[in-house]
C-alpha cells in the first residue's frame, strides 16, 4: 500500500515537472522518506536520480514541442555548481529561520508578479522564445 502511495506521488511529481518545469523534488523527497522509509539524506539523494530521469524525458518531450533552448539550458546548468557551493556556505553562516522567511517573501513576490502577468496580457503573454534581448 505504501508503495502505491509512493508511486502516485511520483506521478504527481512528474506532472508538476511537465506542467511548470520543476524537478518535482518537493513531492518525491517526502514520498521516498515517508512511504519508502529512506532517511532524509538518502531520500534527497535518491530523489536527485529520479529528477534527472524525469527532467531528461521532460526536456526531450518539450524539445519535440519546440520548447527547449538547449544553449541557454546548458549555460544555466553548467554554472549552477558554483551557486550550490555559495548556498551551502551561506546556509551555514546565516540563521536558517531568517533564510526561510526571506525565501518565503521572495516566493510570494514572484508569485504576485506571475499573477499580474497572467492577468494583464492574456493574449500576448508567453509568446516569447527568449531569443530577443
Amino acid at each position, binding site marked *: 500500500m505504501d508503495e502505491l502511495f509512493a508511486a502516485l506521488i*511520483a506521478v504527481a511529481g512528474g506532472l508538476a515537472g511537465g506542467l511548470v*518545469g520543476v524537478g518535482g523534488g518537493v513531492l518525491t523527497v517526502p*514520498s521516498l522518506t515517508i512511504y519508502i522509509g529512506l532517511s532524509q539524506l538518502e531520500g534527497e539523494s*535518491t530523489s536527485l536520480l529520479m529528477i534527472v*530521469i524525469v527532467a531528461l524525458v521532460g526536456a526531450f518531450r518539450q524539445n519535440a514541442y519546440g520548447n527547449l533552448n538547449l544553449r541557454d*539550458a546548458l549555460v544555466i546548468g553548467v554554472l549552477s555548481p558554483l*551557486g550550490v557551493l555559495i*548556498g551551502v556556505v551561506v546556509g551555514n553562516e546565516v540563521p536558517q529561520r531568517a533564510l526561510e522567511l526571506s525565501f*518565503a517573501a521572495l516566493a510570494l513576490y514572484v508569485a504576485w508578479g506571475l499573477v499580474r502577468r497572467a492577468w494583464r496580457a492574456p493574449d500576448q*503573454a508567453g509568446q516569447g522564445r527568449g531569443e530577443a534581448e
Partner: protein
Amino acid sequence: MPSERTLKLAAVGTLAGIFSGLFGVGGGTVIVPLLIFWFGYGERMATGTSLGAIVLIGLLGAVAQGGFYGNVHVGTGLLLSIPAVLGVVMGTAIQQRIPQRAVSLLFAALLLGIAIELIVK
C-alpha cells in the same frame, strides 16, 4: 568577453545553485521565473529550458551523492522513476493544450505553497 546575455544566464545558473544549496529545492522554482522576467521567455519555453538545465544540475548532485557518499538507492530510484516519467509525459502533453497564462498561475500557486510551507515550518 562573454556577452551580456551569457552573463545573465550565468547569474540565473548561480542563483539556482544558491537556492538549491540553501533550501534543497531544485533550481526550477528559480529558473522559470527568471527566464520569464529577465529574458522574455514564454511560459512553455521557460519550463522546457528549465528542465534541460535541471538535468545537468541534478546529474551533478546525484553523481556527488551517489558516487562519493553512497546515499542514492539506485533500484528504488529507478523503479519510482517509471510512474514519475509517466507523469512528466502527461504533464508536458497537458501543458501544450492549456493557455500559457494558466502555466503562470499554476507556477504562482506552487510558489504560494512553498512560501506557506516555509513560514509555518
